């Protein structure tokens, strides 16, 4: 898995472009990269265009990040493939998250 993080000039808007699988091995890395960067961010987008699949370890990262962002901003999930959406739907998270 790879993550590329892009922020606007004042650091309030951040997009994380994630590539590969967000699974039991890679999820902690994604969590760490997001946590290192989310200070001061009010709009965080996870762009999943190049994500293959997400297991519950990845769902956990999404839930923790959403919880973090809900205090001062929002989390947006973008370009989610239909199989990732299936997992989000099974767990009811599709109803609770901002998915574009």
């Amino acid at each position, binding site marked *: 898995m790879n993550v590329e993080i892009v922020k606007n000039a004042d650091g309030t808007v951040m997009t994380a472009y994630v590539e590969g*699988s967000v*699974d*039991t*091995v890679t999820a902690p890395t994604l969590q760490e990269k997001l946590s290192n960067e989310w200070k001061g961010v009010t709009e965080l987008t996870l762009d999943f265009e190049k994500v*293959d*699949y*997400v*297991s*519950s*370890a990845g*769902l*956990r990262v999404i*839930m*923790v990040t*959403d*919880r973090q962002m*809900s205090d001062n901003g929002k989390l947006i999930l973008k370009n989610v493939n*239909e*199989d990732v959406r*299936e*997992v989000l739907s*099974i*767990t*009811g*998270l599709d109803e*609770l*998250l901002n998915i574009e």
Partner: protein
Amino acid sequence: MANDIRRFMFNGEDSLMLPARRDAFVTLKEWMDSIAEELNLPTKTRRQLLVSADEIFTNISSYGYPFGEGTAKVTIDFDVTNAEITLVFSDNGIPYNPLENSTPDISKSLDEREIGGLGIFVVKKLMDTVEYKRENDCNVLILKKKISHG
């Protein structure tokens, strides 16, 4: 007539023995990806199998051996007659049937939810059948999924 069942080999062995540590999932993933390619599995099925394997292996790695290190054995069969894949996970850790886990309350908001506990629930939904048995002091989990192209 007996079904035509094919057992996948890993480095000349008829199963893959892994240390029960989450990072070892990399090896299982590589093996499963190569099998998916060989069987020309639909992307959706490949992803469903990988997510399910991830959940089961993570469970064994996280809870199976609280008093030390252990292993998990994985076998993969393909029933050619029925176009069905079977994944079997065995470990000799503490007796534990994850299927008896209570179903998470997915109607709750994110704030109210317990983080975790979703894994087995996801596996039950993605696979056609999931069975548990305790056999020869081992936990055995059997996952089955039919392959449908189209």
